[in-house]
């Protein structure tokens, strides 16, 4: 049986509330807009797409201990419950904050399932503020752990990595990558520094203004065998056991972003008048906004259910996490669509902030697999 309150107690509330206060100060919508949407030309026409985030804010997040939250105590972390991490991710999503936090959390989830001795130095780097990113996706954009765009070959006491990882999130904010590569024994996992010789980052031109994404090419990248964090026999299992937390934390981010879309659209429906009434007077406007709220509350409930299962009932975690991400993807699509539509003409413009969230949500919907994919995988668990 799971705790009725999802295990969301005093410690978790304090973390969430202090995060709210901090983010209200450093990540207001005005600041985020100035950071990522000041100029449409720079955003979309630059030869090298921007990877904008505020390094000082990131350093403060590290100082607040956020990168240590999911790290085991044995590696210098604080090992907070997943419900706490989910609550923090919700606040990050609510501000559409550009930062490597989500990618670094994903990497943390994988590292803490990997071989403890090999993973520890990398987890310690994360505690110290190093951003990390997963390089586990092939050119098809598959989220199946067994599919990888890289190949690993042993040469003496070295391992040589070749190939390209696609759709690597926040690649230019990361100091190292957690990489999956096919080897003779299966899919093994490695940690590789971003500046390692032979590693080249090719930035993608993406729609989302709050992330950066890249193809990361590995050209005869030679690393010591000790950089292997999971051997071929266990790599897929390690990725799979990290998956529930990844799905849940991403879904939490999307829930927070959807709540911003709801609140912003509601506020607009109160101040904008047409036909002598505020927009919210008209049921054709009011009811879709209520539907946004209902969808968000479904998703949010599923997020905390999944997080709670990760903390206490791991055998149910993947099932509940797939439910949460499926719901989050559908809710994000719905809320994004309504937030633009109900703002009318202004909602279609660059200057209206709903565009920033619309794009972040579109990106998140696909990340780790969209709703249809989650349900396909869920069917296998029934």
């Amino acid at each position, binding site marked *: *049986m*799971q*705790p*009725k*309150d*999802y295990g*969301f107690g005093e410690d*978790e*509330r304090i973390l*969430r509330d202090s995060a709210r206060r901090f983010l209200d100060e450093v990540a207001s919508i005005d600041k985020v807009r100035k950071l990522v949407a000041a100029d449409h030309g720079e955003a979309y026409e630059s030869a090298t797409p921007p990877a904008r985030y505020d390094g000082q804010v990131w350093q403060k997040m590290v100082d607040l201990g956020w990168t240590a939250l999911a790290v085991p105590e044995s590696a210098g972390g604080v090992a907070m419950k997943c419900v706490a991490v989910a609550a923090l991710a919700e606040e990050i999503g609510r501000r559409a904050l550009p930062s490597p936090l989500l990618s670094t959390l994903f990497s943390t989830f994988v590292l803490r399932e990997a071989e403890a001795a090999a993973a520890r130095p990398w987890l310690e780097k994360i505690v110290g503020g190093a951003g990390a990113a997963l390089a586990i996706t092939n050119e098809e954009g598959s989220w199946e752990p067994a599919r990888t765009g890289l190949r690993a070959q042993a040469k003496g006491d070295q391992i040589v990595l070749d190939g390209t990882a696609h759709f690597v999130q926040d690649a230019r904010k990361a100091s190292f990558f957690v990489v999956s590569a096919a080897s003779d024994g299966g899919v093994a996992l490695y940690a590789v520094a971003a500046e390692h010789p032979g590693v080249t980052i090719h930035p993608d031109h993406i729609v989302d203004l709050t992330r950066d994404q890249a193809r990361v090419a590995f050209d005869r990248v030679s690393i010591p065998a000790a950089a292997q964090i999971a051997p071929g026999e266990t790599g897929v299992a390690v990725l799979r056991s990290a998956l529930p937390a990844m799905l849940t934390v991403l879904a939490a981010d999307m829930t927070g972003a959807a709540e911003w879309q709801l609140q912003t659209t*509601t506020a607009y*429906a*109160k101040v904008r008048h047409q036909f002598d*009434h*505020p927009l*919210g*007077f*008209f*049921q054709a406007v*009011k*009811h879709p*906004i*209520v*539907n946004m*709220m*209902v969808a968000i*509350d*479904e*998703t*949010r*409930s*599923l997020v*905390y*259910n999944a997080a709670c299962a990760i903390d206490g009932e791991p055998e149910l975690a993947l099932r*509940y996490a797939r*439910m949460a991400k*499926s*719901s989050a993807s*559908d809710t994000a699509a719905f809320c994004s669509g309504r937030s633009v539509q109900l703002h009318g003409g202004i909602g279609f413009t660059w200057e209206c902030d709903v565009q920033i969230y619309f794009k972040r949500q579109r990106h998140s919907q696909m990340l780790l697999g969209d709703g*249809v994919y989650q*349900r*396909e995988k*869920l*069917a296998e668990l*029934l």
Partner: protein
Amino acid sequence: MSERKDTPEQAEFREYCRRWLAENRPTPPPFRLPQSPVEVMTEQQRVWLCAWQKKVHQAGLIACDYPREYGGGGHQGFQRIASAELARAGVPYFINVIGLGMAAPTILHHGTEEQKRRYLPPLFSSDEIWCQGFSEPGSGSDLAGAQTFAERRGDQWVINGHKVWTTLAHFASWMILLARSSREHKYDGLTYFIVPIAGAPGVTVRPLVKMTGETGFNEVLFEDLHVPDSLRLDAVGKGWTVAMTTLLYERGAAESPGGGGGESHEDRIAALIELAKHTRRDGRSAWENPVTRDRILKLLIRVEALKQLGRRARVEALTDHPMRLPLQGKLLTTEISQDVAAAALEVEGMSSTLYLRDENAPQGGRWPHAYMNSYGLTIAAGTSEIQRNILGERVLGMAKSK
């Protein structure tokens, strides 16, 4: 197995509920029981269901948190456990659904000491069945437009008017009635009464036939029904406030003294998945059709979300507005019921044309029946459209719609 947050007393009570339910699960009657209490039609069904509710009440699983002097158990925090265990056990529903769900909490909040002592014990035991007189032919969603009139004559009230969609009136001893006592004020002109039904002079109960072909609800006509002032609930002109209490419970935003029993959404989804796995067409099962499966899984996820919504509503740190989640319950539960039934019809294909009496109808023809009935749910107790207005206005603060 206790839940982690149970106190020792609650854990002991939960254990008691499980044991009692395991030992006292009724054997199904030799006749068909309708899917829900709102379709109970025959005397045979009534007698059987009343006996079951009485037995559960005597065992202490109904009205656990109500004071002992009103027929309750005098506990705190026990009803949620009893209701959950009843639902988990999958035992039959309680027939006195209007009494338990609406009349009892309304009387508890607004009744006099005498009213509580007189009416609550036989309500819990189902010795007296209750019905609700809110809707009228001319006022459904606009409930405050009720025209049934209560005229004061000395210490009596004389009631004339016409109520409709009155579930269980054909068995009812009593009705909770919203009536107009003044034509000068819309909301402040309403007064709330308890009125006798069975055998009362001036009361006519006529069955209405639903689109399913079943009765179970009625229209009730009042022609000079005389009731004493002692049957008035709360003050003259306070009827709207009292009705809001009733609706809070009717819409599931507050906990009733006897929930549980009957089929849960999870049971229905499980039945739907079974149906899909066993329905074959064109060389594969419906479950193997990815489009159908996706539709079912979306519903499975929403059912889990609804369950978690109820759980999260009790965690203050994870709710932004106290009524935001409770006010969604009615909308969600009824629309999910409808969508589950619609998906089942799609799975059944041509077999969904077969109705209750057809021996080849899948799962006894329950799905076409449930689909039709689901429209009763999305309309009754404030339509889905009214629910969305309430959510938009009371929770999100948007301008009031007309």
